[in-house]
């Protein structure tokens, strides 16, 4: 018996390279460490948890950078092909980490303002980030599913972390029930794909060529699309987004709209562009409809909102529609453009949420448009920052939002297909419509007089750091995309 175990071990190698796994190890290790440390810390020393969290995220970013520079064309399959580390997954991880870093910066003071216990908060953020990293690197549909579940479970709890608020309870419960239902679809779909191809490995699925146009595979693909469509918030699976985004505490909303959305898109790219490439023509049609519906409906509903947080929730739906264009285009250049768009969206959207949090973290304040009245006059600099974020979300030069949209639209037009050009035209019209509701905040901020004197805003260190990073990112990604040229040369597979 012992001998047979020995031969098994000798004939079998997991091919693990710890250096390339460093980002995951740092994040997961720190998530565990924060849980161990937290009970020992009292009073002011509790800040240690927050500092360790952002330091670990920065460390993970640095390790991604060093992997990137030392092994430029990395293509490594580890854990018996269940985990894939390449430039594509590394860049996605960098996007998630930037989202999490900004979230940690904006959370510290806001959690205190809202009386939320902070120890578990950071560990849940780190666990969620770990789940997202698993999704981006998954070489196997099972790993993808488990990563998605780790992320989702943390989000269900984070959405309801404001336990005394009825709206947060509603958000958490709604998200949990709908999310569990969507996960069921995803799992069922993966089972169907396994039934059609006899494998759950993402690379093996494309290679099993005998299954072309098999009903089984199409059902599997459809169910996976429902499951992932829910996670990215594509219409008609978007019903949960407005209530969950509005009910959750604002820093969690900022987190949800950035990293997890990018992670769901990473999964989308993995499944539909890599694994299910044989079904391209069928998938394109469905994605075209999803994309057109998502951006249009998200935009139309955003116009009618009176709450900035809810408006940003609908706007996040329409942005998901723009990224879906990259999926319809189905080319390596389009995937890269989609990834670039997600990075741009992460910095500009969290930037907008940062200002929203500053406005909300005052006495007797809320997230309605009226809370912004007079802010531009009292704090002109902050007003200009918010204006730039809003212009970027609407997609005007010289900001990140413009460059992201430009690259996605260009990659779609380059394919030369008429249906894609129609979709791009629709997207441009939608962007123009979106100007109305994004600039409405700016108008209220600079031109409407507040009823009383404008209550002061608290400038905390973390918030300022988040503002600097997100503003720097928004301008840099928009004005000087060349430094991210390596980004643009990254193709999927």
């Amino acid at each position, binding site marked *: 018996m012992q001998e047979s175990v020995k031969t098994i071990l000798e004939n079998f190698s997991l091919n693990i390279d710890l250096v390339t796994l460093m980002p995951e190890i740092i994040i997961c290790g720190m998530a565990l460490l924060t849980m161990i440390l937290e009970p020992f810390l009292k009073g002011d020393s509790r800040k240690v948890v927050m500092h360790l969290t952002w330091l670990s995220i920065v460390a993970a970013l640095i390790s991604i950078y060093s992997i990137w520079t030392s092994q430029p064309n990395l293509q490594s399959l580890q854990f018996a092909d269940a985990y894939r580390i390449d430039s594509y997954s590394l860049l996605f991880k960098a996007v998630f980490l930037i989202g999490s870093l900004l979230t940690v910066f904006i959370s510290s003071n806001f959690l205190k303002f809202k009386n939320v216990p902070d120890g*578990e908060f950071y560990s*849940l953020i780190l666990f969620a980030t770990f789940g997202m990293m698993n999704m981006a690197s998954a070489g196997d549909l099972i790993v993808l599913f488990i990563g998605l579940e780790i992320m989702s479970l943390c989000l269900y*709890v984070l959405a309801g972390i404001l336990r005394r608020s009825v709206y947060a309870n509603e958000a958490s419960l709604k998200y949990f029930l709908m999310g569990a239902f969507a996960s069921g679809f995803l799992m069922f779909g993966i089972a169907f794909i396994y039934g059609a191809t006899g494998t759950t490995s993402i690379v093996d699925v494309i290679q099993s060529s005998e299954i072309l146009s*098999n009903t089984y595979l199409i059902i599997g693909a459809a169910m996976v699309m429902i499951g992932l469509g829910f996670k990215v918030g594509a219409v008609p699976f978007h019903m949960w987004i407005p209530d969950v985004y509005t009910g959750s505490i604002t820093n969690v909303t900022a987190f949800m709209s950035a990293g997890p959305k990018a992670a769901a898109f990473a999964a989308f790219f993995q499944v539909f562009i890599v694994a299910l490439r044989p079904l391209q023509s069928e998938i394109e049609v469905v994605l075209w409809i999803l994309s057109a519906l998502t951006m249009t409906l998200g935009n139309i509903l955003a116009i009618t909102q009176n709450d900035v947080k809810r408006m940003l929730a609908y706007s996040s739906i329409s942005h998901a529609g723009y990224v879906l264009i990259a999926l319809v285009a189905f080319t390596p250049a389009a995937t890269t453009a989609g990834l670039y768009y997600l990075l741009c969206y992460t910095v500009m959207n969290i930037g907008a949420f940062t200002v929203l949090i500053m406005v909300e973290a005052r006495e007797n304040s809320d997230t309605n448009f009226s809370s912004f009245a007079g802010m531009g006059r009292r704090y002109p600099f902050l007003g200009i920052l918010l204006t730039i974020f809003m212009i970027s979300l609407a997609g005007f030069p010289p900001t990140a939002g413009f460059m992201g949209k430009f690259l996605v639209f260009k990659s779609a037009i380059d394919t030369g297909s008429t249906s894609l050009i129609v979709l791009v035209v629709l997207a441009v019209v939608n962007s123009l419509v979106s100007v109305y509701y994004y600039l409405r905040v700016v108008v209220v901020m600079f031109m409407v007089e507040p009823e009383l004197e404008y209550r002061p805003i608290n400038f905390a260190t973390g918030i300022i750091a988040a503002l600097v990073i997100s503003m720097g990112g928004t301008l840099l990604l928009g004005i000087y995309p060349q430094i991210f040229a390596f980004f643009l040369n990254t193709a999927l597979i």
Partner: protein
Amino acid sequence: MLEGSTAIAFYIISFVMILSAIAVVTLKNIFHAALFLVLTLFAVAALYILLSAEFLAAVQVLIYVGAISILMIFAVMLTAQLTNYNIKQTNEQSLPALLISVCFIGITIFAIATNNKLGGFPIKENTEIAGSNTANLGQLLMRDFILPFEVVSVLLLAALIGAIVIAKRDN
């Protein structure tokens, strides 16, 4: 493929499973519904044995019957007077839901019947697997699927922390 005693066992188990599953979603007394759920899950375990997946059957009984259903029954019994309530299990959406489910079953049956790889009905027997299922499964879990196997523990830990965050007392 289904012959003799296997066929008889299959039809009996399926009959019990479908009837008790219908009972779960139609009975007005939530306690009775929970008990029928136990029966449904037992029948699923019996189907697994029929498919010679004995490990799956054992896990099904241990986890679904032993843990989850018992927990549900406890929750029902500990919730004051819930056992006595008559709960309506349907709403105005039940008819569309029924239609969609029937469509889905139809598509699934069509897919299985026309699946080349599975050979349509009757499903081909897999002769490749040698040795006991449980041993093979163990080797797979510890080799090809070692990563998901380990990462699931992170999932459980995150779930545990989440449950504590939601349920703990305010201090």
